């Protein structure tokens, strides 16, 4: 009974996190802020759900598989986010109009003036 309550709490938290992430994906104004909403929440939710799965089955082989999934997502999600964010930035996606500052633009401008 205790374990069922724990699993329920984990699953509900995960689904609420995912729901917030998708609301954020819909509402937020530009690419980097949208990625803030999705990448971490996706990883977090998968970790929570997989923990619930491990608790539910309570078997060694399942737990090993669950740990593999969690580690894999934790390693790959930031790499994918970095790749997409960089590619999007370089291909000229506009940042939000209220963005406070943009040091990366300065950096690329400096580099262009250096090389030319």
């Amino acid at each position, binding site marked *: 009974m205790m374990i*069922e309550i724990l*699993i*329920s709490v984990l*699953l*509900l938290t*995960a*689904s*609420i996190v*995912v*729901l917030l*992430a*998708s*609301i954020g*994906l*819909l509402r937020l104004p530009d*690419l980097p802020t*949208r*990625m803030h909403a*999705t*990448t971490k929440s*996706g*990883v977090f*939710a*998968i970790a929570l*759900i*997989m923990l*619930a*799965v491990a608790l*539910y*089955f309570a*078997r060694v082989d*399942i737990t090993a*598989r*669950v740990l*593999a*999934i969690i580690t*894999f*997502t934790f390693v*790959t*999600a930031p*790499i*994918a986010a970095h*790749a*997409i*964010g*960089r*590619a*999007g930035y*370089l*291909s*000229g*996606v506009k940042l939000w109009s209220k963005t406070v500052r943009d040091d990366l633009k300065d950096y690329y401008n400096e580099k262009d003036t250096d090389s030319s």
Partner: protein
Amino acid sequence: MFEWVIEIVYLLLSVSLLLAFVRLAKGPSLPDRVVALELIASIVAGMVGVHAIDTGISAYLDIAIVLAITAFLAAIGFARFIQVRGMHDD
């Protein structure tokens, strides 16, 4: 009680799938769509986990593993593609 929790979780995940799909269809630029696609992959992997709990069949977890791997590869591939192609109208 527990069945109800599973139902609610399915419902919430489906709603978020729908919202992410709206962003996938709307997305002003290709990177936005890729981000939405990645979130969809995460949601589906989560759904597979919930389904494994629901049915009690642990073999479904393999699907989640494959899904996580392919989502990562797709994201990297799209990133390369965007970088090479530059900015056009989508």
